């Protein structure tokens, strides 16, 4: 990216008298929330680590059945969406409202595309009789059952986070349109961005653990 044409607004001070606005505070709160999310997923990563060390061979075998192409495409989609998210924040700081809305809409579309991909991936698995509690899966060794249990649990929880992210972004889009988010008051958008990067980072760990374990 080229250097911004105008200086980015630094930590803007509240311009309305009597209205409490604390950017550093809002960011601190969001960072703490992001940590709690990491710990929430952390419980699942612990379970994954434990069962993989117990059933290394089964995990290796089951991982080969996942669709690596779809997994990589989804990774690219999410990484691109993080870029458009950042571009949206930069645009609003430069007072380019329409551009900011455009990039935010791109981020939402990419998030939705991720979910569509995921839907087809899950559908194919369920079509083959691979889903928690299915007869087909129960006939296989415990390690493979656990692998798919974790796969559905972790990608499901991640998908839920993507969905929440898209919903939050649609609210932000309305805020942008109504000038509730402005070049000197964009903490809501920035915190949405923080959340979206978190969702992205978690996927970056899910990809190797599930798709590349084979």
């Amino acid at each position, binding site marked *: 990216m080229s250097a911004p044409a105008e200086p980015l607004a630094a930590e803007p001070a509240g311009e309305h008298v009597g209205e*409490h606005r*604390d950017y*550093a*505070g*809002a960011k*601190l*709160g969001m960072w*703490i*929330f992001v*940590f*709690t*999310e990491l*710990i*929430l*997923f*952390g*419980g*699942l990563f*612990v*379970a994954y680590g*434990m*069962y993989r060390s117990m*059933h290394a061979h089964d995990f290796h075998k089951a991982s080969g059945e996942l669709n690596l192409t779809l997994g990589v495409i989804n990774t690219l989609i999410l990484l691109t969406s993080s870029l458009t998210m950042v571009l949206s924040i930069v645009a609003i700081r430069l007072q380019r409202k329409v551009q900011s809305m455009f990039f935010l809409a791109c981020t939402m579309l990419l998030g939705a595309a991720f979910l569509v991909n995921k839907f087809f991936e899950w559908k194919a698995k369920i079509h083959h009789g691979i*889903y*928690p*509690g299915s007869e087909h899966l*129960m006939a296989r*060794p*415990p*390690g493979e*059952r*656990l692998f798919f*249990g*974790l796969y*559905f*649990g972790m990608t499901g*929880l991640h998908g839920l986070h993507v969905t929440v992210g898209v919903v939050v972004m649609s609210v932000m889009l309305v805020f942008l349109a109504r000038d509730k988010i402005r070049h000197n008051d964009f903490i809501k958008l920035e915190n949405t961005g923080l959340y979206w990067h978190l969702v992205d980072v978690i996927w970056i760990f899910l990809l190797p653990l599930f798709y590349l374990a084979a």
Partner: protein
Amino acid sequence: MSTAAESPTSEPSFYERKGIASWLLTTDHKRIGILYLGSMMTFFLVGMTFGVFMRLEQLTMGPTIMKPTTYNALFTLHGVMMIFLFVIPGLSAVFGNFFLPIMIGAKDVAFPRLNLLSWYLFMSGAAVSLSSLFTGSGPPDTGWSFYVPYSLRTRTNVTMAVFGVFLIGFSSIITGLNFITTMHRLRTKGMNWMRMPLFPWALYATAWVQVLATPILGITLLLVMLERLFHLGIFDPSIGGDPILYQHLFWTYSHPAVYIMILPAMGAISEIIPTFAHRTIFGYKAIVLSSMGIAAIGSLVWAHHMFTSGMSEVAIVVFSLLTFLVAIPSAIKVFNWVATLYKGSVELRSPMLFALAFIFLFSIGGLTGLFQGALAINVHIHDTYFIVGHFHYVMFGGTGFAFFAALHYWYPKMFGRMYSERTAIVAFVLIFIGFNLLYFTFLVLGLQGMPRRYYDHLPRFHTGHIWATIGSWIMVAGLLLMVINLVRGLFRKTTIPANPWGGVTLEWTVSSPPPTENFDVLPVISEPAYTFNPVTKEPA
């Protein structure tokens, strides 16, 4: 202590606005504190009733007033309500919300709307878990710990109860996040960290535990729900999962949760003792550091709940050692409180009596905890009434008594009214006697071998059970008297001065009850907390 706001303001109190909407849509931290107080006292009384029924059942051998399945549901719901709806939100939700901003010289918490959201999450969590009583196929019967695989097999309405607890956990995380940000961003001018009073410090340590430990409970309970609905298999041994993993994850939250319950209680005691000893707290820095120490070490001791569950010997020894270590900061606090009394001018008002009882009961609770940390003894007393006695000494004798101490201490400030001191003392004496009769008997019964959660008992435990049940009657009489006294006090027309006890923290500089904005002019702090010299008590 403060220089700017010496005289109480004549601003209207925060009760000024009327109407139900002004309460349900409020973002005023004081009103949210009152909302929490009302809802939690209700849950406490319901949970207490469940406990009374359980004691009645144990009054005679064989069936007394209920079926075994009802008994199972009762101990589960007693645990869920008391733990998740009373002691975990506990002092931090009520007094933390009400007093944290005032004590650090702020007008509100950092995120007032999130604060209201957390109350709504708490209430919906409570509603969902209570609805498990009436919906589905019967109330949950797993015990409050929801151990797998039974919680996956039972046909009772565990999913609903677990979802309720999940929501309450979310509420707890938001409160913690809010308090941390508040203390980092909103301390008034001159109030650096080492001038912050000890109740906020305790809330700070608690908030970190809430934020870092609660998500683990969240994911664990989420998995229990998914297991029950979709048979994921993570905890289910018939699919390949490991039930011990559940226990690890559950206690990774639920042991630190014990410190979520007790730390704010210790903070409140650290406020009450200097006020009624009329001298500065002994060892301020040591108490601050021990709060943080308890939060840190307390997060690493969870597996001492699982000594008999199946773990490597190395793990068992390590967790036993860590358990002994966490006793050190707790003991430091006890010594500091006692040292504060030394050469103080001790005034035995009702809050002080509750606070002194806290020190006594918490010491018993803490020391019996060390018995269980010792490996050889643990095997003998595991899952007996000794455990039940121990955690009631810590949770009720500790947090419960501190809650009542704080309630009596801050009552005039919160409501601008006063309860009857004489009745409060009578209630205290009844609670104290009943409590010890009930739970000390539990300790003895446990050493004799009475297992916990059993519907019935053998003849050799019979005498003990009768004593305990009598104790429960005395205690409940005291508790009811206390509640009636506090409610009646609300209707006694009196005016309360800003500083009825002679306290020196900032909440005693604003009028009782405080004005909506807390301070006309934000105070500027120029001295350490608990500087007593210039303060004179106002005539009541």
